[in-house]
């Protein structure tokens, strides 16, 4: 094993001199963390509202003021007629119309009940649902303030339901997203760079030269993968620091446990990258394949949309996605404080992936053609 240090030395040198790899290693992660964490949010912060107020009373204006005061709603237009209000929905100037009918206030005072119509642009169903929930909670509060000690559907509060949110009490979306994005960082190093790095030797022809040397298959594979393994763990450390400093993500669980899991996960992803490189002859093809798998892995990982919302067959397929398991581990350990025994199943999955894909890839990579 005297040869290995020489191979590692060479690989590190090459990685740090490669102009197209360095940005992927050092710039892309920052961009991803900063942009993705801020952009990838399903939080609804600004509902653009068009107001159609046929009543023009203190009661109707009060509700609009109250909605604006929450910070979630902003009035983009006051439209005289319902049609004009709805028109703003069509032109995407507004994403919601609130329509007070004539006699809104009078009805409320006389009979204690009045109607207000809300029309949501539901193209984005999730956003519409959240907007509606916000709006109705404002309306409930407002009704209460107006003196009617009643709730929305008119039933006195007998069972008092106290909602409690554990693990992310401040309801911050970045807290949820950042651990998942850290997984992405590690994955890109593992999959993209390992695949491209090996195919590159094929493309420039040095692999022929290596194949006639006494380098063994395992020396070659370890020499190629270990630097990336180290870089992957470094990225994770870097990402965790940024997550802490920039996004104040709570880290309840054990950080060493996170690194231990990442170490196993990286082996699996590096194996995958190696396998991709054995399937391709040019960096181009490797990139395409890697990108293709990456899209599938990301979309079926629970990073953006919950796995639990998928149909059952898709959930079963998602079990075969290493990303899904690692994202679960990261969220549970970092945000919920899970210990090893709580994530044991996920850990076994990772070990399973690593032990399947790496040997498969090593076997596929051969020094001698047949």
């Amino acid at each position, binding site marked *: 094993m005297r040869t290995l240090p020489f191979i590692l*030395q060479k690989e590190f*040198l*090459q990685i740090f001199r490669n102009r197209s790899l360095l940005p992927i290693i050092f710039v892309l992660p920052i961009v991803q963390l900063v942009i993705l964490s801020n952009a990838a949010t399903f939080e609804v912060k600004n509902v653009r509202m068009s107001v159609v107020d046929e009543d023009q009373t203190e009661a109707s204006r009060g509700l609009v003021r109250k909605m604006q005061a929450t910070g979630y709603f902003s009035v983009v237009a006051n439209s005289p007629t319902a049609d004009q209000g709805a028109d703003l929905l069509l032109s995407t100037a507004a994403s919601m119309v609130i329509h007070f009918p004539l006699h809104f206030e009078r009805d409320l005072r006389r009979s204690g009940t009045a109607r207000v119509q809300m029309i949501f642009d539901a193209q984005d169903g999730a956003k519409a649902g959240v907007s509606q929930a916000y709006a109705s909670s404002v309306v409930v509060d407002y009704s209460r303030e107006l003196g009617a000690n009643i709730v929305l559907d008119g039933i006195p509060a007998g069972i008092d339901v106290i909602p409690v949110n554990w693990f992310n009490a401040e309801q911050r979306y970045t807290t949820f997203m950042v651990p998942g994005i850290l997984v992405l960082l590690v994955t890109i190093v593992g999959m993209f760079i390992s695949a491209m790095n090996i195919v590159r030797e094929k493309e420039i*022809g040095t692999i*022929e*030269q290596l194949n*006639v*040397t006494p380098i063994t298959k395992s020396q070659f594979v370890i020499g190629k993968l270990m630097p990336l393994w180290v870089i992957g763990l470094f990225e994770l450390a870097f990402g965790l620091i940024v997550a802490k400093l920039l996004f104040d993500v709570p880290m309840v669980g054990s950080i060493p446990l996170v690194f231990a899991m990442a170490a196993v996960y990286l082996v699996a992803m590096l194996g995958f990258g190696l396998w991709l490189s054995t399937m391709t002859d040019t960096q181009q093809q490797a990139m395409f394949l890697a990108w293709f798998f990456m899209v599938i892995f990301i979309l079926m990982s629970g990073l953006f949309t919950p796995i639990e919302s998928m149909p059952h067959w898709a959930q079963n397929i998602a079990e075969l996605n290493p990303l899904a398991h690692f994202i679960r581990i990261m969220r549970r350990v970092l945000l919920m404080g899970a210990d090893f025994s709580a994530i044991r199943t996920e850990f076994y999955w990772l070990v399973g992936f690593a032990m399947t894909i790496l040997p498969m890839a090593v076997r596929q990579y051969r020094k001698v*053609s047949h």
Partner: protein
Amino acid sequence: MAAKDSSTERVVIDVRDLTRRFGDFTAVDSISFSVKRGEILGFLGANGAGKTTAIRMLTGLLEPSSGDATVAGFDVYRQREAIKKNIGYMSQKFSLYEDLTVFENIRFYGGVYGLTRATIKSKSDELLERLGLQHARDHRISGLPLGWRQKLAFSVALLHEPEIVFLDEPTGGVDPVTRRQFWDLIYETAANGVTVFATTHYMDEAEYCDRVSIMVDGRIEAYGTPNALKNQFEVSSMDDVFIRLARSTSQSS
């Protein structure tokens, strides 16, 4: 050609009926020859004649379909790793890493062949001095002229003192002066008892070889010393030998 008493030298490459098929296509068709220690073998042939396939089998990169061959006394089927320790190889495609410096390349290949750091250090100093490249020790390969790279690649292939060195078109794209210098290096190497197995396109280079093999359509159609071949085909240069051969096979087919 330094006259060598070949009868007392041992055979280092021995090939018997070596064949390689790719599907229906026979790339190398039952070739046989042997090369003795310290000889320079010129391995000639048109593009696609099967030279590269033959070299890949002898260096352990490709498994033969049938036939036998030993390289440095080791079998090409069962002892490929032992062969690799005892040969040097300089490929057609450029074999040094362009993004590494001269010394880093030497260190890497030295390490791959199991040399210690101290040995690598002394050997690289010696090598750079011989090539007159001391000043370029810490320059990246990408900045070196092609001729220097070729000489360097050749020297790196010899770093671990192999018995045989395989050169796959070593002088492609190099100017005549550098080619001449390169062949001087080859002579020097052969004189030190290293067997040189070189493929080439240049017929003038064939004249420099101890022995020449010419492949046509996967077979060895001519084999012998350059003089013997010229006599056999009754021509005055290796160029003409080659043209004769090409003509006779195109007539026969």
